């Protein structure tokens, strides 16, 4: 199978997945007890008031009709209007998505070189002191839940020592990059472990593989052997894991967003579900589904390029 045909097939499958996810989310949101009208009415649940809100939000129409309306709007690239703010959903999402994207980009930029380098170092001294040290530290970091690490970092470096801002309250993230340091550390803690250990395992396998041994016989050694011949094969499983990490980051890591006050997609989703703001929930799910499908598609294509014979394509 060639690359373009493979890509086209995957793209079609991706579209189907997005449509399926949107439908499932709509059904699930409908199944939640209460609707936006009840949530808005809050502790003034006067039945007449709830009925008025419901009519105003067109929630009195049958669910299938609202779903079809939403779907036809979506086909015209219209994500609808928030039930809560009455502003177009895209308004709020653009800001949240920007924040999440920035945080994900910064994290990946630091993560990939660092974790791959650590993995290679560990592979080089397989079983040695450095290898054991890298394993011990990265596994230990992996074992700490994000929120615990976040709280600890804030308490020590933010509040007690005062070296770094403990939150990003109202800050322009680009103008004030210091607010990103602590969240970045928390976001890196777990992926550093998975990526570096996969790189290490991949490198060790690759160095023993037939084609690297062949390269060695041809007299290729040192950095060239490692980077040009062993690393590409070693990275195929790493890329798949990296795709998972990217999905996780692009979905908005709610714990990090909440503790550090970085209102990205995770915060937006929690707020939208809590207020039963179905158009916003739907738009977010479509956005997250699209990014997940796109990231995984990209990862498969890269893995296909790196190691056509690894069986990434079946």
């Amino acid at each position: 199978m060639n690359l373009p045909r493979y890509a086209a097939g995957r793209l079609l499958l991706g579209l189907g997945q997005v449509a399926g996810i949107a439908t499932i989310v709509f059904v699930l949101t409908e199944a939640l007890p209460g609707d936006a009208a009840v949530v808005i009415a809050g502790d003034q649940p006067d039945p007449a008031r709830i009925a008025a809100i419901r009519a105003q939000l067109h929630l009195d129409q049958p669910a299938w009709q609202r779903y079809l309306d939403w779907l036809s709007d979506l086909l015209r690239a219209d994500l609808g209007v928030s039930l809560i703010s009455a502003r177009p959903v895209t308004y709020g999402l653009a800001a949240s998505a920007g924040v999440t994207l920035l945080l994900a980009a910064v994290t990946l930029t630091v993560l990939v070189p660092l974790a791959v380098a650590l993995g290679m170092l560990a592979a080089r001294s397989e079983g040695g002191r450095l290898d054991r040290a890298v394993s011990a530290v990265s596994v230990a970091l992996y074992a700490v839940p994000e929120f615990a690490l976040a709280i600890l970092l804030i308490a020590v470096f933010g509040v007690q020592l005062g070296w770094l801002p403990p939150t990003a309250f109202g800050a322009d993230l680009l103008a004030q990059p210091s607010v990103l340091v602590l969240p970045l550390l928390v976001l890196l803690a777990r992926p550093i472990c998975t990526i570096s250990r996969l790189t290490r395992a991949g490198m060790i396998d690759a160095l023993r593989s037939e084609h690297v041994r062949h390269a060695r016989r041809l007299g290729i050694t040192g950095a060239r052997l490692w980077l040009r011949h062993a690393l590409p094969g070693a990275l195929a499983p790493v890329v798949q894991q990296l795709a998972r990490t990217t999905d996780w980051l692009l979905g908005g890591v709610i714990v990090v967003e909440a503790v550090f006050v970085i209102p990205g997609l995770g915060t937006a989703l929690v707020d939208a579900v809590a207020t039963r703001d179905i158009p916003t929930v739907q738009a977010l799910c479509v956005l997250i589904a699209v990014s997940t499908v796109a990231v995984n598609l990209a990862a498969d294509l890269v893995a296909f390029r790196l190691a056509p014979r690894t069986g990434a394509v079946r």
Partner: protein
Amino acid sequence: MLFPPVAAPRLSRRGLLGGAAAVSAVLLSGCGADSTPVTAASGQPKRGGRLRAAFAGGGANETLDPHLANLFNEASRAKAMFDKLADYGPDVSIAPRLAERWAPSSDLTRWTITLRQATFHDGKPVRAADVLYSYTRITDPKRAFRAKASLDMLDLPNSRAVDDRTVELALKRPFAEFPNALAAFGAYIVPEGADTFERPVGSGPFTFDSWQPGRTLLLKRHDGYWDGAAHLDELEYLISNEESARVNALLAGQVDYAHDITPTTARTHTNNGRMSVTRMPNSTMQSFVMKVDRPPFDNRDLREAMFLLTDRQQLVDTVLAGSGQVGNDLFGKGYQYYADDIAQRTPDLDRARFLIDKAGARGLRIKLDTAPVASGFVEAASVFTEQAKQAGLVIETAMGNKDTYWKDILNSGVLASYRSGAMPIETHISQRLLTNSTTNATRWTRPDFDALYAKAISSADEAARRQAYGDMQRTLHAEGGFLIWGFADFLVATAPRVGGVSANAPANTLDWARFDKVWLG
């Protein structure tokens, strides 16, 4: 969350990382943080500066429409940019604001209101037409603004602007407490024709500057404010639903004011010199509602037994961590018309057991509906369960859905957790305790009680009204469905240099979350 600020459902992520601030606190004390007590460092009022205030909020979909204000931060922003004709004073009596004075006709159905000389931020005067427009918008039958219920008695077609600064409001029925409606939550005066609030124009002490929904709102001083220009140059609202984040930002100097902190945080940081805590007593009524129209609480003896088995002090000490006062099964402690001549109830287990036996209810299983919809609900339910057990009742807690809790407990169940923010006692009665009340969670429907209320609100004589309110409260105290065990303080933390934060301001009253009288020292 308190009364209007419904938004408890939207804000309940508070629990997610409850321990965060505590960890910071432990580290702080462990490392021997400076323990000089906070002095009145703020000193005399000083002009200038930008105050950064951290609130919980509604996220990226929040609105600046003052008539939609619901959450604490929305209420605070609304009062920073807009005014009502009247507002709640420290004892929740009515203080004139944009209205300079009012006078009813002898039959209490027409009220002539004289407006103050005030201007909107665009320089236009506040006129009678703006008042009529605002009230028409709020009571629009096609919309569902919160203040609509309070202003529904207005007969707007028969109301008129006498001149620019005089408005005559007609009512559908006589109503002696009409000023309560002028102060209702969300009854703000907006300029005639205003229907979008992306860049709000109001008459309040601060003018709009810039806004990123869910993140930050920047306001500037309105120099022409009728009540005296604010001390601050700028006021910035910042949003985080995580209490620990608000507190950590305050400790690190990122913000100057952290709204709504827990008693635990307050206790931890007392006298460590890094923050001052302002307590606003009588802010949140804490209670259980018993439905009096169905078994088992249609039995008056059983209701009295419930009143008597409750150890209120224990609930205040544990659930509120001591930040509050005991209740006497009456709403509005410290408010105007509160019947403080009624003796405080104290636990009497023997009599409670006697009454339970008399009602044939020993060992009875009773379902208590609760949900993590407001702080302390679940804790109070568990403490109360223990107390009831000692008197021979078996309370079974049923955890409900926090997003739809208030609607769920309105008509179903027999016993539920309940709370309310400040409002006049008259409003509490009319919304919750009359046969036709829309949120009557105790199902209290008594023609004689309705008649007493009707008498109170149709009497121009204040002494007669006080008498009627007293009689109603005596009935409720003796046999009502509200088991009101306490009143929680509302807690706000500020940087030591912040001055002018009023403690004499139950949540939802005028001086609560108000910034035009606040300064940076």
